[in-house]
């Protein structure tokens, strides 16, 4: 009975010993972890038990070359987990960053009430005029409101990558669109001329679809359009083609109606006022959102989907890697059984043994984490991909391997190393000395 209780107690203690540090590790910021490492180093330098731990650890690390094959299982296994995790999360981060960069707090987008996206929204000419005359809209030096009635439509064009048709977004913009989005730079050719069938292509769109180079022409509904320039905005507008709202509207037979009106406010604090003014105006039925909120919402679904995929895959791989690490470290402890027993026979306590095995595993794990994160960074940082955005057209984005993601990957590596090292460490410290000496 007593032994059953004892085993139960040991099991519970091990569970706490696994769960608590892993949670602490994954939740703590980098400086806390660094402080802990420093503390550990001080402990090893200045206390008796610490010094013992250090010397046992040194022996362990020195014998790694003899166990290169099995040690590399820990390193490569963890590198795989961290690499896949960082790559998938950097994809989510890249998409999110691209869309979030598109919005600001002091510009608003006005769409028909109930429309979720610009593609679904229709704003007639009269409404657009009422909206742009709101008192909170900023005026340019010439005294005109900085408001752009915009029409979002889709064209189906062959992609460069596989020749299959993809959707590219064509955005008809008003004359004030350039003042509204001062971050947009023309990098080649010129802006389109209002009234003409001319388009200027975002640099990502031009890299994604065939025949969008400056000077080429494309046919839409029996009409020929010319690409007269290329622009760069470093946000989701990079995936669009821009033309004159009225001309795009006539090609797509949309009359004088548009999809939305985007406007610059006198300041971010004017949002509540303009929202109240426009949504209560009996003449019109519109929704008013800041562009930051609008583009954040657009990124949410896909970002969440990729994160869930990344973490699911990461967790399953981590479980596999933990068992790999357990195998390796149990084997390592077994081959060192006699040495460890000897140490304990001459008076070393259990703690230095546990600490040394743990440190050895976590160093291997850290190496794996650095390797995996490094490979993910080398291959995927700035890797471009595209997906269907909520306007049903291709949004091109670059993967973003940020320091935060790299650090997150390293924390996963350390956590896996900790769990994979703890059980063999405790086993090493608990083998009765007599059994250990007789081993092999």
């Amino acid at each position: 009975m007593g032994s059953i209780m004892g085993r139960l107690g040991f099991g519970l203690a091990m569970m706490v010993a696994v769960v608590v540090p892993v949670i602490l590790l994954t939740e703590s910021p980098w400086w806390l972890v660094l402080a802990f490492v420093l503390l550990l180093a001080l402990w090893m330098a200045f206390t008796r038990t610490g010094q013992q731990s250090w010397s046992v650890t040194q022996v362990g690390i020195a014998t790694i070359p003899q166990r290169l094959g099995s040690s590399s299982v820990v390193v490569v296994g963890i590198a795989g987990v961290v690499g896949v995790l960082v790559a998938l999360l950097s994809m989510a981060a890249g998409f999110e960053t691209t869309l979030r960069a598109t919005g600001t707090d002091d510009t608003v987008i006005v769409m028909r009430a109930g429309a979720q996206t610009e593609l679904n929204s229709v704003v007639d000419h009269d409404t657009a005029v009422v909206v742009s005359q709101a008192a909170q809209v900023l005026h340019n030096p010439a005294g005109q409101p900085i408001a752009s009635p915009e029409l979002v439509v889709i064209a189906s064009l062959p992609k460069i990558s596989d020749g299959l048709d993809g959707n590219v977004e064509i955005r008809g913009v008003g004359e004030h669109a350039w003042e509204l989005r001062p971050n947009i730079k023309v990098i080649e050719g010129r802006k389109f001329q209002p009234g003409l069938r001319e388009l200027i292509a975002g640099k990502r769109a031009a890299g994604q679809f065939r025949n969008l180079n400056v000077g080429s022409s494309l046919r839409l509904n029996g009409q020929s359009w010319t690409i007269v320039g290329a622009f760069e905005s470093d946000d989701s507008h990079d995936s669009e083609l821009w033309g004159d709202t009225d001309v795009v509207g006539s090609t797509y037979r949309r009359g004088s109606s548009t999809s939305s009106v985007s406007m610059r406010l006198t300041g971010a604090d004017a949002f509540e006022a303009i929202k109240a003014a426009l949504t209560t105006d009996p003449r019109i039925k519109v929704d008013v959102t800041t562009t930051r909120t609008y583009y954040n919402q657009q990124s949410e679904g896909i970002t969440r989907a990729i994160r869930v995929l990344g973490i699911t895959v990461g967790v399953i791989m981590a479980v596999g890697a933990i068992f790999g690490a357990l195998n390796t470290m149990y084997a390592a402890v077994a081959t060192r059984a006699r040495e460890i027993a000897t140490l304990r026979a001459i008076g070393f306590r259990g703690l230095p043994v546990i600490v040394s095995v743990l440190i050895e595993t976590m160093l291997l794990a850290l190496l794996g984490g650095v390797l995996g994160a490094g490979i993910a960074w080398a291959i995927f940082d700035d890797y471009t991909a595209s997906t269907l955005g909520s306007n049903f057209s291709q949004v091109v984005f670059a993967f973003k391997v940020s320091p935060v993601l790299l650090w997150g990957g390293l924390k996963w590596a350390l956590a896996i190393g900790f769990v994979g090292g703890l059980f063999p460490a405790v086993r090493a410290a608990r083998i009765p000395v007599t059994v250990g000496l007789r081993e092999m």
Partner: protein
Amino acid sequence: MKYLHLVWAALFRRKTRTLFTLLSILAAFLLFGLLDSVRMAFANAGGSIVGADRLVTMSKVSFTLSLPKSLLPRIQAVPGVAEVSYANWFGGIYQEPKNFFANEAVADNFLDLYPEWLMPEEQRKAFKATRTGAIVGQSLADRFHWKLGDKIPLQATIFAKKDGSNTWIFDLVGIYHVRDAKLKSQENLLFFNWDYFNEAAQFGGNSTVGWYAEKLADRGQADAVAQAVDRLSADSEHETKTQSEQSFTTALVSQFANIGLIVGAIMAAVFFTLVLLTGNTMAQAVRERVPELAVLKTIGFSNQSVLGLVLAESVLLLLLGGSIGVAVSGVVVNVVRARLGDQLPLAPLDSSIWLSGLALMVVIGLVVGALPALRGMRLRIVDALSGR
């Protein structure tokens, strides 16, 4: 076969190590099952055989642009077209945006083109007879607990009604189901009458349709018919693009992401790790058993037998862990599909996933077993027994 007990005993000589290795293999093949199910779900979207005798005609510029209804009799007259129908995307939302499902306004003969959607005859009649009638797939009905006679309100995102309201209310008069498990995702649609849509929509109706669907008289004539249909509107302001249903979905799916590439890259990372891990286990196992293998040889086992024994052991290890892993992923996929319907793109695990899984297990088993097995085969009895 007669050596199975021998292989089995060797495998479980070190229980903990074998168990941990099995669990690693299990995790890898669990991932394999799940990811392949995702890949299949995307591949099936474009690859259904049943749709091979249907074409879709859309605006050449973009499928968001509508076409005049006046094309209908002209397409009907094209030789090789057995039947034509048409539909409009509606894009309504049930209660809140996250409940997304596709809903379309369809002509009254639309269902005739889709014999794989099964529905009782009286419900078909009721759908044609009820102006505000709607039909839904079984999965969708289950997801929202709808039954015949329910009123389903949809919030329009594109098409407001003539009276200015955004709420369209439909009467559920029919529920169809699909027999083929791979096509279950087609049960997540709601259809209602195009005539009602055309009358009640504020704009966007105007006797225009989103796309035409044509049933071919002869599957082999698909290209000729498609070209003939597109010629009808060549150089007009409503140029069309006609393609098989299959190539339309393939192109659409390819726009989401290169699923094959992502899944392939993850699997490569997983299996590379797995090969190293099990390879290490097998190497350890053989190293420990060198004296035993030597004894086997001493009592008359040939070199080839020893090679076979070690290879069999590693293949068995992979098959054990891998099969359990794929089986677990099958359970997970079924549970997720039952809970969430088709919100996640997961195809049920069918024989093709099992077959490729088993093939992988055998190949990896042979690869990781090869070096240790060769070592076992090349053992010289004298050296091994004397511990050299």
